[in-house]
């Protein structure tokens, strides 16, 4: 915990839910419907967001949208800098990834390295027709040429600020705050 750092709430429950609804519509629009869609969330919070998006898209288009979890631990590029991390289960729905339009879902897009690892992990499972990326927050400071197709909120931050995402499935509330290094 960074005691003493000023904390600013940038998204509240209502903002998050509206953003997800908008993203759901954008996904349907861009892909001309929801056929062949597969949502894969990146643990921990991305997985829950993928579940929510699948439900929203499913209620709009009146069909069951497959969604799963893609653990990226073994493909991280920073494995050697700390002790080995525990793995979380990767869950791919029975239809697999072949020829699917895979939408990766994560809470925050920052350096882009997590998504790079996700693309590697996905590549070892199969060959999707397309891979798209949906994030709740894009906070800039990319270190790789990675970009999101769907963004809940663009959040310019300084690199030393901390973006904290809370998701009600595990954190009791929906909220995004920034813990700043400087007074803004």
């Amino acid at each position: 915990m960074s005691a003493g750092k000023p904390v600013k709430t940038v998204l509240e429950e209502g903002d998050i839910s509206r953003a997800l609804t908008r993203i759901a519509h954008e996904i349907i629009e861009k892909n001309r419907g929801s056929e062949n869609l597969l949502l894969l969330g990146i643990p921990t919070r991305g997985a829950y967001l993928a579940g929510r998006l699948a439900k929203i898209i499913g209620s709009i288009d009146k069909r069951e949208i497959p969604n799963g979890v893609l653990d990226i631990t073994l493909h991280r590029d920073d494995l050697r800098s700390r002790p080995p991390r525990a793995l979380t289960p990767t869950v791919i729905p029975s239809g697999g990834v072949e020829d699917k339009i895979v939408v990766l879902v994560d809470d925050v897009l920052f350096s882009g390295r997590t998504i790079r690892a996700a693309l590697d992990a996905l590549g070892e499972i199969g060959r999707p027709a397309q891979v798209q990326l949906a994030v709740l927050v894009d906070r800039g400071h990319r270190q790789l040429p990675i970009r999101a197709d769907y963004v809940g909120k663009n959040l310019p931050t300084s690199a030393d600020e901390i973006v904290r995402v809370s998701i009600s499935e595990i954190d009791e509330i929906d909220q995004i705050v920034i813990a700043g290094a400087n007074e803004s």
Partner: protein
Amino acid sequence: MSPEVVTELPRHLLSIGDLNHDQALLILDTAEELAKISDAPIKKLPTLRGRTIVNLFYEDSTRTRISFEAAAKRLSADVINFSAKGSSVSKGESLKDTALTLQAMGADAVVLRHPESGAANRLAGWTNGVVINAGDGTHEHPTQALLDAFTIRRHLGSVGSDLNGKHIAIVGDVLHSRVARSNVLLLTLLGAKVTLVAPPTLIPVGVESWPVQVSYAIDEVLPEVDAVMMLRVQSERMQNSFFPSTREYSRLFGLNLDRMNLLQKGALILHPGPMNRGLEISAECADGVQSVILEQVANGVSVRMAVLYLLLGGNIGVGS
């Protein structure tokens, strides 16, 4: 954001006795995840790329060596196989010199199979790399016990759970078995009840200090257990009068069809291999529907991948 690991393993895997409950579960749960890769189209992960793992085998063991080799290669590690026949120091290079040589060659880890108890412990004192005990004399074989527990848990438990409340029998030459020693430690660590079944000559003096029960009556034990693990019995033990003949051993302690029918429905039959069909286990039992012996072999690769990942996958310094 990936969860930070709270549980870390000790530096080497020399004995199950070095692991606590959480560490043992971490290995089994990690193995569950890594097992999925055998169904993936590309059976390869980049995780240990650039790590060099040496299989240093002083005993013939094609099965274990191939299992470790497959595990290492699936994680993209480089594997060097070093087969040193002949056990004692007098035959060729000493274990210490071999250890120093491997270290000079840049081995990050050594997987050691050796005919003398304690060899892995000694090796760990002479090298900066990670040492994994693949079987030392009659002392321990930790990865065998881990894959046995993994196999049992898949049938009788679930991911994240231990073996609390399960009753497992280990039958055979306990005295000379490193598999038995590692399994006693691991199964009891995971909360199972363990009963050893063997003629008194093949139960070690000092077993009173083990958290196990001992029985000489296999027929009384089999109906009570959720799994029975048959150990290999060497017929050469007859020369030292551990039992009078293979016929008598088989008759009193062998797992045959009649005894298999004493088992509860759903009880498992395990064997670490290689089997003496007809001596400690009959063909019907080895090939029957309750046997999980082939699964044990398959699970060996996943479990060994988990061990290699957890020991070598992070910031393990070499030469530090």
